[in-house]
């Protein structure tokens, strides 16, 4: 009897750890070990007289400074593009999520399925498709030329614009879904109460709806900004050599130039920069103050 109870109590204590174990083992093997390995690589230098791709550990932290100075332009571009794509996605997704949450009625579920429907085809394929859409024979360029909005010689493919548009498109669902989730949770009666208390539609949005949807805004912008800042697919497919982002530099350093230390140092710098920015952002948005 006592033994049974003891083993019961023991398993109660152990159970959470047992549940954590598979996840921990997976992350340890495939995340923590590689990260440590990457950290190690980032301070290596080429072996004197060695072959391409042969490095030795010399704890040269100056690798970080060299890598940053050499690629500061791509660094800045990564963040500017990511911010542009995030703001554009927010501008498109907010009205969309608002309409689905409050105005869609019985079409709500269909619209939600449509939001995630693009995931049924490959990310790469959808990005390549934008080359067609923005191409000379696409749906966008000819009308813009006809109305003289862009010049005869202006093209949209292989531009920074195309890269930002591509990222906006690809990350739009990650913006829309959290926005929808937080808007949908708002009690419509709080909006009625705001109208009842002398606030017109715009004031109600500014004072009630928007603040109550901030958790969704924060989650959506993070889910868009973080992958966008590290993205290289959109720049590779839709951009040109002058619209390269840091992701493209890391990719070519790793796989083409075989400059492992610089690639590793850039990866860490990018990670740190994103972490700092996100921390500041969350502090400023003050999500823990919200419901």
């Amino acid at each position, binding site marked *: 009897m006592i033994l049974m109870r003891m083993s019961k109590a023991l398993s109660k204590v152990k159970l959470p750890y047992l549940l954590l174990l598979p996840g921990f083992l997976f992350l340890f093997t495939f995340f923590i070990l590689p990260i440590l390995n990457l950290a190690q690589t980032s301070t290596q230098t080429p072996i004197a007289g060695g072959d391409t791709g042969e490095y030795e550990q010399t704890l040269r932290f100056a690798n970080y400074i060299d890598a940053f100075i050499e690629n500061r332009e791509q660094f800045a571009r990564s963040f500017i593009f990511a911010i542009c794509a995030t703001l554009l996605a927010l501008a498109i997704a907010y009205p969309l999520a608002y309409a689905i949450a409050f105005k869609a009625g019985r079409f709500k579920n269909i619209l939600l399925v449509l939001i995630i429907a693009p995931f049924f085809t490959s990310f790469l394929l959808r990005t390549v498709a934008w080359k067609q859409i923005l191409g000379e024979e696409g749906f966008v360029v000819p009308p813009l030329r006809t109305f003289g909005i862009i010049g005869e010689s202006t093209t949209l493919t292989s531009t920074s614009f195309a890269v930002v548009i591509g990222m906006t498109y690809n990350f739009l669902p990650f913006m829309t879904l959290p926005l929808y989730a937080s808007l949908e949770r708002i009690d419509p*009666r*709080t909006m009625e*109460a705001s109208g*009842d*208390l002398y606030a017109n539609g715009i004031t109600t949005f500014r004072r*009630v709806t928007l603040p109550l949807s901030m958790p969704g805004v924060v989650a959506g912008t993070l889910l868009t900004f973080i992958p966008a800042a590290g993205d290289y697919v959109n720049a590779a497919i839709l951009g040109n050599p002058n619209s390269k982002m840091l992701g493209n530099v890391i990719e070519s350093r790793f796989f083409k130039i075989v400059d492992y230390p610089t690639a590793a140092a850039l990866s860490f710098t990018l990670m740190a920069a994103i972490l700092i920015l996100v921390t500041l952002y969350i502090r400023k948005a003050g999500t823990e103050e*919200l419901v």
Partner: protein
Amino acid sequence: MVDVSSATRGDLRLTRITKSYGDFTAVDDLSLTIPEGSFFALLGPSGCGKTTTLRMIAGLEEPTVGSIHLGTTDITTKRPYQRPINTVFQNYALFPHLTIFENIAFGLRRRGIKSVDADVNKVLDLVELPHLAQRKPTQLSGGQQQRIALARAIVNRPALLLLDEPLGALDLKLRRQMQIELKWIQREVGLTFVHVTHDQEEAMTMADTIAVMNEGGIEQMGSPADLYDNPKTAFVANFLGQSNLIKGRIEGTDGDNLVVDLYGQKISMSKNRSHAVDSSIYAGIRPEKFRISLTGTPTRGNVLTGGHIEEVSYIGVSTQYQVAMPWGQELMVFEQNDDGVPPFDKGDQVVISWEPNFTFALRGDEDVEAGTEVAPDDLDEDE
């Protein structure tokens, strides 16, 4: 922006209001005047159109037909924020992201008032919760949230305060307490209160005037005592308290009284309590107006003989009897347990008597079940 202080005041008049949703008519040709300064209750079962009426007054719905006037101003198509009317919402609808102070200050700030502290603190004192000013709504109990919702509305001193089932989410004890407090606050601030409820006891406790609503229209309007003692329809007789309705026939008159035959026994009643259109009537008597005595003991007033006790339920303050009458009907009788006489037993042969002027008469073609089948506690929020 509405400058409430100088905005139109006066009686609220609804003129021939109809509200339809497709084929469904929620409110049907309703006219109503609510006098300034009164505590007015719209009482009815769920689905009777009372909440829709309230939402039209608030401006959250627009009537399909008809007009709404406040004083001399037509407010029928005015937006909610353009009306000097505030609402205490069912479930309160406090702003969860704002402090209690900011919740209450919301309306004042929207009207461009800069110094709100004095007004906000005054209503916080009125609802006796000044210490909660810096809390968030989720940190408050249901009863406290209810008071804050009230404070948030009355701080604006609206021409009209609407209360939509304001006590529905509170437990019975708290509800009783809030009923008394609401009544006190209404007298204190002197605003017109329009209170929507399905709870007849709540309406009777608080309101000066009650409009009983049924199927989109007003069944009867009057003071609580008026409605209770002199209901015009079976719906009102049954929805406000309980009634014994006995089929009968008017035989003649005797001065200011009517002589009525109930299954061969003659009773008398006051003429002005009769709403009959011909000689066929239902005589109505409230269960607590009946007296029971054993057959053979002296009685006074109207008397019905030949009954026997069918069921006895002792409920402390009173005893409830079901008395089976010779014509097969069971009458309900409430006797106060205040005379030291032990309750009657099942099977006792009894006579029932009552004061003639407690009798009311309804039309003989009424549905005696009207207003009984709707469980008043079955509250449908979406009405």
